[in-house]
C-alpha cells in the first residue's frame, strides 16, 4: 500500500467514525429513558395548564430541603394561603420535578372540605434539580413556586 492511499484511508475511517458517534450517543441517551410513563417537564406542565400562563406567587409556601443527602427520600410540603370557600378554593396541587424521567410526582385534587390548601409527601429525585409546585385555583388561574434541591446520592437507579 502506498503512503498516499494509507493516509486517505485513515481520513475515510475517521470521517465515518465522526458521523456515527453522535448516533451512538443518542442511542445511549434513549436507552437511559426506559420508564413506561416518562414525560418531560414541559409536556407535563402543558398537560396540566393547557398552555395557560403560570405566575410565580408568594401565596404558596413551598418547603423542601436545600440539600438532600439521600435522593430516595426528599420530604416536601406545600401550603397555599388561599381561602377554601364553596366558590373560591384551591382546586389542585401538582408536584413536578424537572430532571427525573417522569416529571410528574403527584396530582392532588382538593375540595372546600379540606379547609386549607395543604399537601405533604416524600419524593424521589435522581439528581440536583428544581422541584415545582403548580397550584390550580377554582377561577381557572395557575400559580407556582419552585425550590432547588441539591441531591448528594440519587434515588432513582
Amino acid at each position, binding site marked *: 500500500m502506498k503512503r498516499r492511499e494509507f493516509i486517505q484511508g485513515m481520513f475515510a475511517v475517521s470521517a465515518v467514525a465522526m458521523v456515527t458517534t453522535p448516533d451512538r450517543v443518542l442511542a445511549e441517551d434513549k436507552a437511559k429513558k426506559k*420508564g413506561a410513563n416518562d414525560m418531560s417537564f414541559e409536556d407535563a406542565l402543558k398537560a396540566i395548564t393547557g398552555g395557560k400562563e403560570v405566575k410565580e406567587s408568594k401565596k404558596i409556601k413551598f418547603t423542601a430541603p436545600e440539600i438532600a443527602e439521600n435522593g430516595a427520600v426528599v420530604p416536601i410540603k406545600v401550603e397555599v394561603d388561599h381561602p377554601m370557600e364553596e366558590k373560591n378554593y384551591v382546586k389542585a396541587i401538582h408536584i413536578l420535578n424537572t430532571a427525573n424521567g417522569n416529571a410528574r410526582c*403527584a396530582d392532588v*385534587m*382538593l375540595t372546600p*372540605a379540606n379547609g386549607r390548601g395543604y399537601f405533604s409527601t416524600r419524593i424521589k429525585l435522581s439528581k440536583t434539580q428544581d422541584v415545582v409546585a403548580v397550584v390550580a385555583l377554582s377561577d381557572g388561574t395557575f400559580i407556582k413556586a419552585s425550590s432547588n434541591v441539591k441531591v448528594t446520592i440519587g434515588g*432513582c437507579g
Partner: protein
Amino acid sequence: MAEKRKSMIKIKPKKYKVGDIVKVDFIVIHPMDTGMKKDKKTGKIKPAHYIDSITFSFDGKPFTKMTVWESVSTNPYFSVNYKVTGKGKITVDYTDNMGEKNSKSKKVKPKG
C-alpha cells in the same frame, strides 16, 4: 393476588373539636418500584410497581383525590388537611398499577 398491605391513618392533633382543621396523615408500606432498579438476588430488572390513585373520603363522600406516579418514595406518606364537620369515618382507598385495591379507615371523634 391481592396481598394485604400495612397502612396507617393518623389524625393530628389528637384532640379536636367540630370546625377545627386537622391534618390527616396516611402512610402505607409499599415498594413503589420505578421499573429501573435491578433485583439484587436475581439480577433482573424489577417491574414498575407503584400506587397510582388514592381517594380520601369522609362517610363515603370523597374530599381529596390523588394521582401518584413512581417518583414518590418507598413506603409513601401523604398528608392533607380536613375540616372536621362531625362524627364519622375517614376512609382511604388506594390502588396500584398492578390492580391491587386496598382501603383503610379511621373513626373521627370530635370532642366538645
